[in-house]
């Protein structure tokens, strides 16, 4: 939103869209490369693979090529190149980010779900959920308060990158990017080829050591001749199990056309009901694999290198039609497009979003009366909880009561559902601590977990 004038002065250097991207991403090569904000674990992954393969090519390959077959280094090089190509492809590409809605679009959605009679005290705003029927299954499309859209089916908001990602699988710190619609096949090929590479290197190094032992007479002498082999064996031994397990898991997901996100949430698990099945499945294992791995290559929706078109929105138009008063709908404030330097400093707008969070809760389930109390006391935790707990007990209908998570020590597994991480992941450097409402850090995560399910939000609140 530009200032109050309807004319503008020409900008000397037109900005590209990646420069004004509101999510928490890093861009390189003038927007060609896109990654998550924290990439240190990715460099660790690359380092681990490159060092292991360097040692293998330096210490084992010459001996094996001479004494066994020259095919070993050739196969190793091909596998290594494939692993690196798929790893870089996964890490550097757009996972399928859905660009946030323009202010006009958001205002249009607001109009469609506008409160018909906000003055009626008994009126409660409906939950922002659209329902569609896909292949006979009812799918709920949830409204994303950050992106101002109803998320398409299978899309989810990544709390680490702060983007809605299509066919969101998980956020993988090892590859330093989200895994979604556009890079899942690269990711799958990466872990599959990495599993092959691990097993291959492990087998080769063991063969090398056995041959050396036979030649030198004792195992200790053999190790003295190739000390690097022991390091490789250790690295391979510890990584091969996790990589194999992960490959197996993702092979199952691919064969049944599921995402990690859906699998963890159990969205289509038969435990939820007899008639619960995955509506996206093509019906057979073979078709699912082809569809997931060889389907059409979707284009990036972000147009990262496109030039930003200055669109002039006068203040009257936004306040007039786009922004209902906070009494009606608290969470409809349009965030200003962030400046790039502001993007680096997420802490600064914490206080601002804290308030938005409060109103989000309100718009989901609490009357306007409660809203005022909350808005007035935005920082202290306990009064809010005291205010809200009775509400949750008396007057609210829980839509998904049978799926309420088990609450352990005030934190729930389900609360982190958007934050689906690699099952074997270390805590990523940029990751937020477990979600707690009304704590000052981890902004959008809170917003998203709250909007995910109003019932979840209240369970969380009552356990603080």
């Amino acid at each position, binding site marked *: 939103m530009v200032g109050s004038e*309807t004319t503008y002065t020409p900008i000397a250097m037109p900005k590209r869209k990646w420069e004004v991207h509101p999510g928490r991403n890093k861009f390189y090569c003038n927007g060609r490369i896109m990654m998550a904000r924290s990439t240190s674990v990715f460099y660790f992954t690359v380092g681990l693979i490159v060092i292991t393969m360097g040692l293998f090519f330096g210490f084992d390959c010459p001996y094996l090529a001479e004494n066994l077959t020259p095919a070993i280094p050739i196969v190793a090089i091909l596998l290594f190149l494939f692993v690196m190509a798929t790893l870089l492809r996964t890490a550097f590409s757009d996972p399928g980010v859905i*660009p946030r809605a323009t202010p006009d679009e958001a205002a*249009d959605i607001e109009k469609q779900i506008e409160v018909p009679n906000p003055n009626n005290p008994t009126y409660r705003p409906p939950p922002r959920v659209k329902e569609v029927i896909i292949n006979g299954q009812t799918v709920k499309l949830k409204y994303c308060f950050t992106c101002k859209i109803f998320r398409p089916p299978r899309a989810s908001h990544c709390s680490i990158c702060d983007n809605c990602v299509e066919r969101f699988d998980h956020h993988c710190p090892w590859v330093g990017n989200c895994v979604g619609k556009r890079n899942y096949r690269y990711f799958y090929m990466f872990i599959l080829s990495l599993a092959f590479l691990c097993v291959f290197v492990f087998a080769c190094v063991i063969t090398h050591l056995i041959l050396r032992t036979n030649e030198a007479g004792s195992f200790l002498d053999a190790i003295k001749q190739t000390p690097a082999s022991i390091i490789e064996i250790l690295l391979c031994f510890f990584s091969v199990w996790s990589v194999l397990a992960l490959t197996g898991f993702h092979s199952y997901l691919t064969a049944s056309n599921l995402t990690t996100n859906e699998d963890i949430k159990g969205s289509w698990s038969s435990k939820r009901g007899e008639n619960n099945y995955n509506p996206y499945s093509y019906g057979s294992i073979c078709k699912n694999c082809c569809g997931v791995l060889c*389907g059409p*290559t979707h*284009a990036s929706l972000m147009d990262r290198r496109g030039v930003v078109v200055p669109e002039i929105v*006068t203040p009257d*138009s936004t306040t007039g039609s786009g922004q209902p008063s906070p009494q009606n709908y608290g969470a409809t404030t349009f965030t200003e497009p962030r400046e790039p330097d502001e993007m680096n400093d997420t802490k600064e707008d914490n206080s601002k979003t804290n308030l938005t969070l409060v109103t989000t809760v309100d718009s989901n389930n609490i009357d306007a009366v409660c809203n005022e109390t909350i808005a007035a006391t935005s920082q202290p935790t306990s009064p809010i909880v005291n205010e809200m707990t009775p509400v949750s007990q008396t007057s609210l209908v829980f839509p998904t009561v049978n799926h309420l998570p088990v609450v352990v020590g005030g934190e729930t597994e389900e609360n982190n559902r958007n934050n689906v991480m690699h099952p074997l992941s270390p805590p990523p450097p940029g990751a937020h601590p477990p979600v707690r409402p009304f704590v000052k850090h981890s902004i959008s995560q809170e917003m998203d977990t709250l909007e995910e399910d109003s019932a979840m939000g209240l369970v969380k609140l009552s356990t603080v």
Partner: protein
Amino acid sequence: MLSQPGTEFNMASSHHPQNQVLDNIPRQVTSKVFIQRDYSEGSGVKFITKFPTDLEGKIEHSTFQDTIEKLNSMFAEAEEVGSRSHCEGCLACLTGYTIFLCLPTHYQKCLKRIARFVQEQNDTIYVPRGLMITDPMERGLRVIEINILRQDT
């Protein structure tokens, strides 16, 4: 639909090739109509063909529906899972996905065709009627935005 009497959208400032023909014609966008996605058949790109009430009297129902249906069929072609996409996928996989660095994908070719189609529809049908379609790709395939223009006479 929303009405924004003050919103001025200067086409000359646009850098999109789609709007090149319309450059030098400063027009005012009085309001915008959004055609939402239709997810009833899955997450494929498909837009609702229902005629929006705000366009009543501005364009014939059949013309509008033809345009949206044609767009839907073009997206369906781009997203088709078949032998063509399988060949492309396998070939790309064999080259370690490096082939995409130099060859455009089937999807990208389809998107170019769609952009041309939108441009052509604008030139022949929509702009003379005081409307203008925005290429859905420019809105991240979330919506088809139809601008209602105020003709300067």
